[in-house]
């Protein structure tokens, strides 16, 4: 099903569209199982690619439980801990949009790749500035290891052992026009 990558790109396909669909379906079932249904849940996707994944999970949860689960998106630009130089403009900020009061809710935080854990750390800080949820669970499409912080996902689409130098690229239909995951020897090779 998955096409071979264009010759100029060294990326090795890891997941194709069906793999992604199956992984998300499984995660949806695990969420329902762990939370005894879909009551009181709010899905929050980390911008950029966590947001469409959260939307997809919401649709899957509705198929399973006939229960609409609200979806928010979260920009973590203001909560990063990596200081750069001021020579270039910092990353553009996207507006966060969390449509419901998260206080007392169970939040499923959704991101595409879990690596050092720093993005999730930033996302937790950002969420806690918006409200006081009852609990926060973490769902990721890929876990590639190399954690620098004590962060553990609750739901994993696929464990993907990598070296630190390697770069994992997740392509999603909503943003990139196709569903696919590629792995590169180093970041410079990614498209």
């Amino acid at each position, binding site marked *: 099903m998955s096409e071979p990558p264009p010759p100029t790109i060294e990326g090795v396909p890891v997941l194709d569209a069906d793999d992604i669909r199956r992984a998300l379906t499984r995660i949806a079932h695990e969420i329902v199982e762990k939370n005894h249904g879909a009551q009181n849940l709010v899905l929050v996707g980390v911008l950029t690619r966590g947001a469409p994944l959260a939307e997809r999970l919401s649709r899957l949860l509705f198929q399973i439980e006939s229960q609409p689960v609200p979806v928010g998106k979260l*920009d973590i*630009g*203001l*909560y*990063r801990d*990596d*200081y*750069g*130089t*001021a*020579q*270039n*403009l*910092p*990353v*553009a*900020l*996207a*507006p*966060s949009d969390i449509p419901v009061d998260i206080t007392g809710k169970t939040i499923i935080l959704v*991101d*595409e*790749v*879990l*690596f*050092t854990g*720093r*993005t*999730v750390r930033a996302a937790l*800080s950002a969420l806690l*500035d*918006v409200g006081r949820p009852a609990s926060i669970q973490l769902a990721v499409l890929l876990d590639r290891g190399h954690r620098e912080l004590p962060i553990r996902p609750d739901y994993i689409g696929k464990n993907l052992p990598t070296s630190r130098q390697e*770069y994992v690229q997740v392509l999603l239909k909503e943003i990139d026009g196709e569903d696919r995951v590629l792995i590169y020897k180093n970041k410079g090779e990614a498209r």
Partner: protein
Amino acid sequence: MKHLLTLRETSKTDIDYLLDTAGTLREILERPVKKVPTLRGRAMITLFYENSTRTRTSFEMAAKIMSAEAINIAVSQSSVSKGESLKDSLLTLQALKADCIVMRHSSSGTPEFAAQILKHTSIINAGDGRHEHPTQGLLDMLTIRQTKGQLEDLEVAIVGDIAHSRVARSNIWGLTKMGAKVRLVGPRTLLPPDADRLPVQVYDNLAQGLDGVDVVNVLRLQTERMEKGLLPSLREYSRLFGISQQSLKLAQPDVMVLHPGPMNRGVEISADVADGKFGIHSAIEEQVTNGIAVRMAVLYALMGVSSDTEA
């Protein structure tokens, strides 16, 4: 972006970035806890050689919301001539490891001068002489864009003492870069030399200047202008160039009115207009709030994270 000195020399791309970022950051001001950790450990020093509670407080708020340290230094104008040179003061602040200096000075060009001297510290111009006041220009644009949805093709009249106004200059460059059409309206004694070479239309008649405009930006009239013989009287100025319900009738029905403050009610702007009576859209308070968002955006652009490490 290393410094923010002028809007004349800021690209449209960067202005877009700053306005978009400010638009995003504005949401934080509506939160119960107005604080994000973004600029933790960064130090902003405000160095004001002119009094200004308003602008300085706005920068201080912006820095504190972004978790930067805000240190204020007020220098009385008189110490300039007898005390330490500006160059030495700036080098001292740099050696104190300020990440960014927010500077206001009565002499045009001092932020440019500071930027030429300092290699490690960012400079934000908070108003220099008659030259520029870029964050005011940005907050005016943000305020207009929030109401009108865009800046392109809007007719904006800047009314009053153009010659001595840094607000006017920053507005002219910012607005025209974003595609708005700018008119300057004021008595000939308060229009700058060769104003017609600026990318604007110049009017010395208020009725013509306001005809069909979408936005009126009213400048503060310094009463000392009258003492220096540039105006016969405030009374006559108010009659010829004051913005009132009456004079706004020629503008678009949904015209919005801006004023950088502080206002001289009854001189350049009538109390009714300032207070938004008769359905007039006075955006003066929105401007103040947007001022914080714009300054947060500028601090973020100058001191924020620019590397993109991975998840």
